[in-house]
């Protein structure tokens, strides 16, 4: 039959909205589907395929690996709001790199939160990588600087700078982040080569506000979407990418060092429908 069946339309709307894709993009996808259905014979399978294609096209060029560099160390600054999985993500990427024979150093740039340095140190011990840290309350920019000097001295391939979780709405904390970035750049002009924003897939539309603000203030070169081993779909990444076009480099799928996968837009779209 021609035209989009009302029941099917409602079903698709619920699927997209409950995946956190948001009202605006959902409406656009449904309008496109209706227009197409008006001119074609549609069955649910074809309708679903059409939607998957729409979603895939939104995510064109959304994939990408961590930047390679001419002269080591490649400096990766990791940031994001509280509890998204920054520290654990650093451990996972470091693990992946060391498995591929790269040398890694971690900078314990969260000098604020209780036992943040200890947490990263445990990971460093588990992975056999050095962790550069100072005492609680130290200037995170100073820790980042020390770690960079250390990495340069030792000829290390990758330096990851962990930072304290911070809400994007907090002026002083955003200024602190800018200072860390500036201090790295003063020491090594190309640094940080990668600035990764870690987003939690269980968060809703606020992921978009977070990405916009962090990008505006610090400049984001890549996104890691965590906790995709849960039931949340992380669909806010669609309107986010459509607007900001920041590539998604990895997804987090668990609490262990191996629970990291490169972002694959086909798998991501398929997962929405499972």
């Amino acid at each position, binding site marked *: 039959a021609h035209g989009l069946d009302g029941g099917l339309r409602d079903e698709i709307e619920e699927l997209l909205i409950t995946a956190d894709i948001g009202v605006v993009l959902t409406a656009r996808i449904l309008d496109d589907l209706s227009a197409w259905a008006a001119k074609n014979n549609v069955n649910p399978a074809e309708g679903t395929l059409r939607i998957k294609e729409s979603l895939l096209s939104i995510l064109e060029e959304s994939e990408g690996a961590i930047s390679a560099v001419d002269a080591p160390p490649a400096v990766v600054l990791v940031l994001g709001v509280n509890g998204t999985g920054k520290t654990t993500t650093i451990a996972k990427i470091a693990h992946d790199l060391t498995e591929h024979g790269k040398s890694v150093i971690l900078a314990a740039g969260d000098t604020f939160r209780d*036992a943040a340095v200890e947490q990263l140190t445990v990971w460093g011990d588990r992975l056999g990588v050095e962790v550069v840290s100072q005492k609680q309350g130290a200037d995170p920019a100073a820790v980042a600087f020390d770690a960079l000097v250390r990495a340069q001295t030792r000829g290390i391939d990758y330096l990851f700078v962990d930072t304290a979780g911070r809400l994007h709405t907090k002026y002083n904390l955003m200024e602190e982040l800018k200072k860390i970035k500036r201090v790295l750049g003063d020491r090594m002009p190309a640094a940080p080569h990668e600035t990764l924003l870690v987003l939690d897939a*269980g968060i809703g*539309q606020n992921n978009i506000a977070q990405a916009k603000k962090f990008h505006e203030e610090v400049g984001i070169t890549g996104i890691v979407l965590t906790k995709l081993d*849960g*039931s949340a779909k992380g669909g806010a990444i669609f309107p986010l990418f459509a607007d900001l076009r920041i590539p998604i480099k990895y997804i987090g799928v668990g609490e262990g060092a191996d629970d990291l996968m490169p972002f694959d837009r086909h798998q991501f779209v398929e997962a929405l429908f499972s």
Partner: protein
Amino acid sequence: AISDKFNTIFSKVRGRARLSEENISEALREIRLALLEADVNFKVVKSFTASVRDKALGTEVTPRVTPGQQFIKIVHDELVGLLGIEGEGLSLSGPSPAVIMLVGLVGSGKTTTAGKLALHLSKKSRNTLMVAADTMRPAARNQLVSIGQRIGIEVFSNDREQSPNRICADALSYASKKGVDTVIIDTAGRLAVDEQLMGELAALKRAIAPREVLLVADSMSGQDAVTVAAKFHEALGLTGVILTKLDGDTRGGAALSIKAVSGAPIKFAGVGEKLEDLMPFEPGRMATRILG
């Protein structure tokens, strides 16, 4: 703000004596949009707008109020009613110690909230003990111990014990000996869909018979908040909810989703990273925030 949108919609209704199907249908669409943008769950929005429609139809427009203001009041009141009562505190009466169990998703703010609650209770002269029952996360015990030192409240911890059940059993007998009247258990974060870990949490609950089982939930949560709340409630029987990170700019619609699906009262709001940053939950303020 949404009230401006309604003044425009209802300006066409001026001079009408009652809110009717035709003049509220556009307003209902706006409400639906606002709530979805605020992360309220799809199904919860459906039933909410249906209730608002039923309440609004046939309502007489009060002379000194615009129809738009009238409609907003209906929506706001309905939202406040669903979000729960103001100042519903902890129910701790009964045999000592009263055990409070904190549960929730990974990274939602449980460990920090344990400290906040402990500080809050110490100000009410309760003799509190915190228990580091997260044996999974690297340096989780250190985190709670450090929090305890910061506020001068004792933490029961055992680096050599891997079983949360054993740690809690030992902590409770320690608490009885020391005359502690309140025990706060910090549990490991987990995914609601992890059946094994949810089963372990249910077993822990059965073993310690807590007076309060509080879901610590991130206020920025999206549509999945209903699944999380439903599964935790189904497994444990939640007695309350604490919403965290309300110091951000999220509209916080997850509050409505969580309340709607679990019925558990939202008791506190986490409004910052410091241990002082805990406030009683205010449904009126939350309703305004959600509507945007």
